[in-house]
């Protein structure tokens, strides 16, 4: 900290704290101490306050003790001559700033409920998204876990022009980083500049317009703290652990663009506590000695064309990017970008035209690596807007290639194509749906580039399992039709084979410790009939991942001697879990929720919980934000049982797992399910019905209550009785 920075940060903290006290006093006068306050749909209250101080702020009155604490922490101004040491006071002032900003923003939620949009994307008349709720946190958190998003940049202020803003944003997107935006400079805001430049903002494109004021910067800190809560399993008030977790694992930094005000400095000081350095475009003093952050604390006067690279270096982040030979920007940040209406140049599939994607193995001599063929009309032969039939056939060959890997490679097509800016991809197989935007075509994007993307990226990620790859892109109706028929036959064979795979007939399961970078305590063991709880990894994926990277996070687990067939416990699995958890857990059951269930991390898709009064279980998906009969919302459930612990009566699982044959069979299987959110019922209806029929209870889905029936045990029990739900007549759960 330099004296100038520390002095400014402490001044800024005083200003923000004064503002918070004033707002709080006014709110108290108006609403009273018992008025509930908080950020939308989160189990972590005001997260920085909760994480650092351990105080759950639920009501206006609860803020009083936080403000009192701030008063004791906030340091006096730095003396001009012979100042007392100021680094520590400035860091403390930074934390006070975050506490005060959370209070200010929470009061804003109370007083102006519509100030922020909420949800993932801006609307036509409001671009400010406000605090990320826990649904967004968990969904996006997985990207932090698996490395698709290594961290985030908190941008304050505005670039000198919207072109420069767009360029910086694009560079950050290409480095896979999230961009959290707040505050204004010279009447301009970075979020607004991006809109001016025609850039799509919102969570899907990783350009998150938190809020117009500097106080919205605290939403970035709140996101970071909740990562350490939900993925790191760190508890309220464990301030040191939260901050060190963030320093070591969340690769974030602040990019103030424009004049750095006292309030900005105060926020920068807060960020340094988290190990997040500041990289500025203005000539503010630098703080180069290391210690609180991994490397420098403040680096300044960085030119705009170098600022992203500099920031990444200062934060100590390694981003390995695949060189993809396409004329548009490319990276995970563009996965959520939309192409719609006027923007569409070409559309394939989606009911407009037939479309299919298919990966198939060939003999070595049948494949010429890197050969990309477009057979039929090109994009530019018609339109815009135009439509074409489309068949993307990826042919691979190699000594390590197995038929089982084909669907895995095929599943990559969706996100790999989506990563290209101006390309939107939905669906898979014969329901694939592709849009290419006008601007992409303007930049020179052609159909052959789909092939180049697949060649480059599949080689990069899966190069170990094949040697050669070529892509044929057909756009002639007859040819496409023929390929669809051929592919459908293959899909059918594949499905039948996967359906036929059983835990009993498989000796090797796979571990998945992918999320140990964030949830050090959690270990998944994935069997053919128990997909990973994040929904992202099934047994086959793990097998392929192991082939690709034999020392990686997916390791074969010899299941060994069976200990309990009903509950799903094996000697080999236990031994593995004991070792991988460093002795913390010595056994668990794959098929039970009641008896020593598997550990749960923060990234599970669903959480099942026992509903004792109904003699059954409920399960809730993370998108459902309402109350559940367990008495907790998803986010509270996740906060309670996540972080790598085994909690009898609760277990995390994937959506797909519900309809797998082994789902909690130790406790009676899906016939135990008495409640699910309506949206989840609808999402898995088809497979669920098939599974229910197998079990001889074809109407099971309709017998299961949802939130329209009730969200307490008392409310749903009469419904279950009326419907004669099978759980009621099953043996007692306990």
């Amino acid at each position: 900290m330099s004296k100038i920075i520390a002095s400014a940060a402490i001044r800024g903290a005083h200003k923000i704290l004064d503002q918070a006290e004033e707002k709080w006093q006014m709110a108290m006068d108006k609403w009273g101490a018992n008025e509930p306050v908080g950020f939308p749909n989160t189990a972590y209250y005001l997260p920085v306050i909760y994480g650092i101080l351990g105080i759950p702020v639920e009501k206006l009155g609860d803020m009083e003790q936080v403000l009192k604490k701030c008063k004791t922490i906030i340091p006096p101004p730095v003396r001009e001559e012979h100042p007392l040491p100021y680094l520590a006071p400035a860091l403390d002032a930074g934390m006070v700033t975050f506490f005060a900003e959370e209070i200010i923003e929470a009061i804003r939620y109370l007083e102006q409920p519509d100030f922020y949009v909420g949800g993932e994307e801006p609307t036509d008349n409001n671009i400010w998204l406000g605090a990320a709720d826990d649904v967004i946190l968990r969904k996006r958190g997985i990207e932090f876990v698996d490395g698709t998003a290594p961290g985030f940049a908190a941008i304050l202020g505005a670039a000198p022009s919207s072109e420069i803003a767009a360029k910086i944003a694009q560079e950050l997107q290409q480095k896979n980083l999230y961009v959290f935006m707040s505050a204004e400079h010279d009447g301009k805001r970075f979020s607004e500049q991006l809109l001016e430049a025609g850039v799509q903002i919102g969570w899907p494109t990783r350009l998150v317009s938190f809020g117009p004021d500097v106080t919205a910067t605290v939403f970035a800190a709140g996101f970071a703290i909740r990562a350490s809560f939900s993925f790191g399993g760190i508890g309220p008030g464990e301030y040191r652990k939260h901050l060190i977790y963030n320093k070591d694992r969340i690769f974030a930094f602040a990019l103030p663009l424009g004049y750095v005000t006292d309030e900005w400095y105060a926020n920068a000081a807060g960020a340094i506590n988290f190990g997040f350095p500041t990289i500025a475009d203005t000539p503010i003093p630098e703080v180069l000695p290391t210690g609180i952050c991994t490397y420098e604390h403040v680096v300044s006067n960085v030119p705009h064309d170098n600022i992203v690279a500099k920031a990444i270096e200062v934060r100590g982040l390694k981003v390995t990017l695949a060189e993809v030979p396409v004329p548009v920007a490319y990276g995970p940040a563009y996965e959520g970008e939309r192409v719609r209406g006027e923007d569409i140049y070409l559309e394939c599939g989606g009911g407009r035209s037939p479309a299919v994607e298919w990966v198939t193995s060939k003999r070595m001599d049948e494949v010429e690596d890197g050969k990309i063929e477009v057979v039929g009309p090109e994009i530019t032969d018609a339109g815009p807007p135009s439509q074409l039939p489309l068949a993307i056939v990826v042919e691979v060959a190699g000594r390590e290639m197995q038929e089982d890997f084909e669907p895995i490679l095929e599943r990559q097509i969706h996100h790999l194509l989506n990563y290209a800016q101006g390309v939107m991809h939905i669906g898979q197989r014969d329901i694939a749906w592709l849009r290419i935007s006008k601007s992409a075509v303007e930049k020179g994007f052609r159909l052959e580039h789909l092939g180049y993307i697949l060649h480059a990226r599949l080689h990069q990620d899966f190069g170990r399992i094949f040697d050669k790859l070529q892509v044929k892109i057909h756009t002639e109706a007859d040819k496409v039709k023929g390929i669809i028929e051929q592919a459908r036959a293959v899909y059918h064979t594949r499905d039948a084979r996967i359906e036929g795979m059983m835990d009993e007939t498989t000796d090797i399961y796979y571990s998945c410790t992918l999320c140990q970078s964030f949830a050090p305590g959690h270990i998944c063991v994935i069997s053919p009939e128990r997909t990973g709880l994040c929904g992202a990894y099934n047994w086959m994926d793990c097998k392929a991942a192991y082939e690709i990277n034999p020392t990686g996070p997916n390791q074969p687990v010899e299941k060994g001697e069976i200990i309990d067939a009903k509950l799903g416990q094996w000697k080999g699995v236990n031994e593995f879990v004991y070792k991988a958890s460093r002795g913390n857990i010595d056994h668990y059951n794959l098929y039970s929720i009641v008896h020593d269930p598997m550990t749960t991390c923060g990234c599970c898709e669903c959480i099942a919980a026992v509903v004792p009064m109904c003699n059954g279980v409920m399960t809730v998906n993370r998108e459902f934000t309402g109350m559940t009969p367990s008495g907790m919302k998803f986010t509270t459930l996740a906060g309670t049982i996540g972080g790598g612990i085994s909690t009898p009566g609760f277990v995390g699982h994937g959506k797909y797992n519900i309809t797998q044959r082994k789902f909690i069979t130790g406790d009676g299987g899906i016939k135990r399910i008495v409640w699910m959110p309506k949206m989840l019922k609808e999402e898995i209806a088809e497979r669920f019905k098939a599974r229910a029929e197998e079990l001889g209870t074809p109407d099971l889905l309709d017998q299961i209550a949802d939130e329209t029936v009730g969200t307490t045990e008392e409310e749903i029990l009469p419904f279950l009785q009326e419907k004669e739900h099978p759980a009621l007549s099953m043996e007692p759960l306990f």
Partner: protein
Amino acid sequence: MTEEKKKKSVDLASMALIDKASSDQVNLVFDRAEEMKPCPIGLVGSCCSNCGMGPCRVPLPRGKEETPEEKRKRRGICGATAETIAARNFARKIAGGAAAHSDHGRAVAELFLAAAKGEAPGYEIRDEQKLLQLALEWGVEIGNRSNSEIATQIGEKALGEFGRQEGELLFLRRAPLKRQELWRKLGVAPRGIDREIVEIMHRTHAGVDQDYRNLLQQGSRAALADGWGGSMIATELQDILFGTPAPVLSQVNLGVLKEDEVNIIIHGHEPLLSEMIVATAQDPQMVELAKAKGASGINLAGICCTANEILMRHGVPLAGNFLQQELALVTGAVDAMVVDVQCIMESLPDIAQCYHTKIITTSPKDKIGGAMHIEFNERNAILSAKEIVKVAIENFPKRGSNISIPKEKTDLIAGFSHETINYLLGGLFRASYRPLNDNIINGRIRGVAGVVGCNNARTTHNEGHIAMVKELIKNDVLVIQTGCSAMASATAGLMVPEAAAEYAGEGLASVCEAVGIPPVLHLGSCVDNSRILMAATAMVKDGGLGDDISDLPVAGAAPEWMSEKAISIGQYFVASGVFTIFGVNWPTTGSTEVTQFLFKDFEEMYGGMWAFEPDPLLAAKLMIEHIDKKRKALGIDKARERVLYDMTMRRELE
């Protein structure tokens, strides 16, 4: 040492007052040093007066090589060799120093216990957190017990350390594990504080321990009982009782005396009574009384380590260090000088007679002919303090006209306890020594040097301290200081943050600027050298700089040492693994073997060793060389590549 000194002091205030003393016909320590040369045989440690057959003189022959025959003959009457005699003298110095520090620690522990029991009105537990930490460390039950109950048990345990007969001192467990094991292996882990000192006195008695190695190992054991025992107890209990120091702005030098206020100087080493004097001087009743006598207030200032203690905790200004105690009287403006123990010159009452100053002794252990005695009674400390302050006030109107207060005074920031440094490097939420270690590893800070110790009238006052410290910080070595040495640097303006840009190397200056600290940190009094031990241990524990104190790129020095306490401090630093260099003179040069043992063999045994170099710049160079040697051994002598983290590396984090 025979050559004529150029100057008596480098401090302008002192030089002016030396001149004034001369015209006032006052005989000063500086004059006495010129009038009397040091005894050349005692100086090199070759005089033994431990029995009635001596004193025996066994110095090395001058200017010629000694034959083996001559060496065999160079013995005392009892047959003791020059080696035994030098080692005995050295060990007795350690015993003297360790006794002084430890008896200070004992007095603190006694007051602490009385305060805990509510038998010392006016004293209370000020640092509850530190009390509870110490309770945890010493296995004192906390539960629902009151602070008073906890403190009582801690006080009893602390007092028990002095008379402990077996086992090991409790604080030894604070040291890095490797160091503890080494002490045990070498048989120097102290069993009890008093026992090790007594054992030195026994072993150095005529006809007992006559193996210089064995004597010097016992020297280590007694010295460790000082640093990790008596001194550490003093520091820790004083912090709990009076508050753990935190950064504070104050001033130093004789210019802090005030023409129009009652000037009371607190001098000595134990802050027990002076804590109460600080409170009493602010008592409105006392201030009124002072005003009634024509003064506009009461001005407290300190000399020696009592001064450092009340500076660290209350910001009370420093009037000066050891060689300035007489000069304070020469100003003619000191109304009372209150002394407790250690480093108090017997000349004070004589000099005071030339002016109006009352010299007040307060300790039953420390009475001086011609001084007034008002005994400090811990059961009624406030009363003693009031009586003393009143004497000073009553004396104010008796000031003569021969008054000259120098204008020199310098600002300083003090108050760097080891706990505070931990906080200062990361704030409430990220406190740690990490930034220090990090910046040592990356080379911005080359190393850390403890420069401590006394003044010595045989060398120019303050010159050695200031020259050495400036040289060190210029070379990016962070300097931590205690005692009179700290005061010297403060007078030279090295203890304000602005000094970093002016005097420190670029790397050190950048860290100082980042943290907002001076390049030279004041850690307190001479018992507070225990804070340096704790800081060094904290550096080891934070990681990246080896696993023992002897691995750290650090060094210690006392360029103007004079007291036996300095020898004890030096010995416990060396035995804790620190290279330690002394100036002025070296008390074992009468025996080449003993000197070699301390300077060379100790390095093999302890990883730290003694050295002697009277030239402060050359001494600084040796310290830097040692620091560089340690940097090389740690592999941090070269710039390191920046490590960038990808997901796989993150997954592998513990």
